[in-house]
């Protein structure tokens, strides 16, 4: 099936060109239908490739430039089950976004479909690429599409601010990736990932290799919003149209993490060798800090899209911590969290879109009790929030259970409860908002929450019933992820394959059927008693925190005042960091990169 990988990029990009070129010739609905078909085709091809790459990587050399004697001159797409799965997810998420925008963006069609498809093709190209420089090009292409989509509504200042901050921060991130690539090329003379890994495997990591790794990873972090590279995110998510938020949350953040995993395991794991755990620990800590800070910031929001944006930060942190455990189980847990999170967060963004179309607001306090008329929408919101916390057998629970086990077997027992705590914080914010909006519980004023701007988002005019149906399907699918039979096993097998550098390099460079260490069927326990307890505990904690958010007036006066004195200054400090000014963001990106690099320079040698 080696003819198939380029189609995942060619279909969306060519359709994008046709839709843009036929803008004045084709009716709007035909354009939409073409775009939807293209996204569906990407999703189906991704699934087909996932099956086809079950036993060995599917490799495509462009123009037939195959490697000679293990030295590649051409450019390849190398597909393994995880990357094909990511491409399928990208196709699926873009499909959801396009179907939703069918009713959501009534007159704004035009180049919207084109930009969505360009993003889709670029993300697929990034996931499948076996060449470091091509990864950079796909990353930038995805970025350009994403900046334009963020600022889609150029008549208002908010989207412009969001798009400017997003574009500038991620452009600097892109430079870091490029400088990293230059360093790698200087050391190895190679751009093919497998070849880089092969050349580096024989050496000890020197300063240049560590600097290259740092720059690549920090560049990818800018896309996947790891603290302190995440500051642009809430500004962009708050103003982007809802279907765009879905593809940002469901696909773009994951792309950044995938990039980190890809360059680590195919290229850098070998030279780091026994010190690899030092690299992993830094990722684990960054992930934990990101998860906790994201959860806390989510709890302080009243703008529903900003709240969901910080919930995305929180879950990206959880996924990064899973990567940082550097084991197949951890990677599989990350992949399963990623799948459930993409669907659930996407679904919740869609639900916000329904609220916007129906009640013309995305402000938790302004919407107080105004959505009582659709209790089943409230039920879906609650299901989505519980699924994101990881209530046993719902949503991200399966991935969390795998992360618990991975943390225990890596001797990082303390990491598991912290990850659950972070998820509970973000979930508590969503539950609180749901209770306020759909039930009218609690007061309709809260000085703890960040102030709301006066700018009112334009509301869509589409059919609320249609939008709500799409929302329901996506949230129900996301909640059911933990119940899919065999997903844990497949995930772990895919992760084992992903980490098997020798087999990957053998397939890519020599075309040889090197036996992989991973074999199907894979027997893995679904979850342990410990995970069930953690899941129940996290749910209880989230409910308690949500109740605290709603009803803390009923606490004794003295306790409230003490809590205010103790908590408010650090929380205000935290808020002040998210200043909305792009210069501050770039400073944090630079400082974050320097500190990460400094730590690695100390521990990796």
């Amino acid at each position, binding site marked *: 099936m080696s003819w198939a990988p380029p189609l995942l990029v060619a279909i969306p990009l060519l359709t994008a060109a046709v839709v843009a070129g036929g803008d004045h010739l084709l009716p709007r609905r035909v354009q939409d239908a073409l775009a939807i078909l293209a996204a569906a085709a990407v999703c189906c091809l991704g699934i087909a490739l996932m099956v086809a790459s079950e036993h060995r990587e599917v490799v495509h050399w462009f123009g037939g430039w195959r490697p000679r004697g293990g030295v590649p001159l051409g450019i390849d797409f190398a597909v393994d089950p995880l990357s094909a799965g990511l491409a399928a997810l990208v196709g699926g998420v873009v499909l959801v976004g396009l179907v939703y925008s069918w009713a959501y963006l009534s007159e704004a069609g035009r180049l919207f479909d084109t930009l969505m498809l360009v993003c889709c093709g670029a993300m697929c190209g990034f996931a499948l690429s076996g060449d470091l*420089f091509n990864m950079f*090009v796909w990353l*930038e*292409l995805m*970025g*350009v599409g994403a*900046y*334009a989509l963020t*600022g889609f509504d*150029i*008549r*208002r*200042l*908010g989207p*412009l*601010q*969001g*798009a*400017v901050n997003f*574009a*500038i921060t991620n*452009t*600097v991130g*892109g*430079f870091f990736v*490029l*400088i990293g*690539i*230059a360093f790698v*090329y*200087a050391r190895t003379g190679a*751009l093919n990932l497998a070849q880089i890994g092969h050349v580096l495997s024989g050496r000890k990591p020197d300063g240049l290799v560590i600097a290259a790794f740092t720059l690549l990873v920090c560049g990818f972090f800018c896309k996947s919003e790891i603290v302190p590279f995440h500051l642009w995110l*809430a*500004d962009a998510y*708050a*103003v982007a149209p809802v279907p765009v938020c879905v593809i940002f949350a469901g696909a773009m953040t994951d792309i950044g993490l995938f990039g980190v995993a890809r360059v680590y395991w195919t290229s850098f794991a070998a030279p780091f060798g026994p010190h690899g755990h030092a690299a992993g620990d830094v990722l684990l800590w960054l992930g934990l800090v990101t998860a906790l800070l994201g959860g806390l910031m989510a709890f*302080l929001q009243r703008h529903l899209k*900003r709240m969901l944006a910080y919930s995305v930060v929180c879950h990206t942190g959880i996924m990064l911590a899973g990567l940082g455990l550097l084991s197949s189980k951890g990677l599989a847990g990350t992949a399963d969290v990623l799948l459930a999170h993409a669907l659930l967060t996407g679904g919740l963004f869609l639900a916000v879109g329904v609220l916007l179309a129906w009640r013309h607001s995305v402000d938790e306090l302004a919407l107080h009790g105004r959505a009582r008329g659709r209790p089943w929408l409230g039920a879906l919101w609650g299901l989505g929030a519980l699924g994101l916390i990881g209530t046993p057998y719902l949503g991200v629970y399966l991935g969390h259970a795998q992360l618990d086990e991975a943390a225990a077997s890596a001797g990082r027992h303390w990491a598991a409860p912290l990850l659950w705590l972070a998820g509970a914080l973000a979930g508590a914010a969503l539950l609180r908002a749901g209770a306020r909006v759909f039930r009218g519980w609690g007061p309709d004023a809260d000085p703890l929450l*960040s*102030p709301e*701007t006066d*700018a009112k988002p334009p509301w869509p005019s589409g059919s609320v019933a249609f939008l709500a149906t799409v929302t329901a399907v996506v949230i129900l699918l996301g909640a059911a992820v933990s119940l899919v039979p065999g997903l844990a096993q497949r995930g772990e097998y895919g992760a084992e394959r992903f980490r098997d550098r020798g087999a990957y390099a053998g397939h890519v460079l020599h075309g040889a059927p090197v036996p992989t260490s991973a074999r199907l069927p894979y027997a893995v326990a679904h979850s342990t008693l410990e995970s069930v307890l953690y899941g129940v505990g996290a749910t209880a904690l989230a409910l308690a925190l949500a109740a605290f958010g709603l009803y803390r007036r009923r606490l004794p006066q003295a306790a409230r005042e003490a809590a205010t004195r103790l908590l408010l200054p650090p929380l205000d400090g935290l*808020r*002040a960091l*998210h*200043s*909305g*000014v*792009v*210069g*501050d963001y*770039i*400073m944090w990106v*630079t400082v974050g990169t320097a500190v990460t690099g400094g730590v690695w320079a100390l521990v990796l040698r």
Partner: protein
Amino acid sequence: MSVLPYAVAVWICLIGLYGVVTSRNLIHLALCLTVTQSSTYLLLLAVGYVDGGRAPIFKGVKLGTTAVDPVVQALTLTDIVVSVTVLALILALALDVHEDVDTVDPDRIAEMHG
């Protein structure tokens, strides 16, 4: 081979970033971004430079002639194309900001925060 190009690349990268961090004007900021970007061109070209190497044009040249690395030049060209796209987009956004609120100061358009 001299370390000078690398030192210059680091210097350009750092002053560009300094400009981005301190800028009070979006157009100026976009130009600072291109300054940072040009450090990557210099770095790539320095990486591929070979002492005494000629331009990598091999028509009518004896086999085995020393030439500088053509790959980094291709990378630089691609990089320029990519960066021009991004720059055009940022400038277009800056223009829209100016039409909207009559300022291009990033501090004054920060209506959302926290």
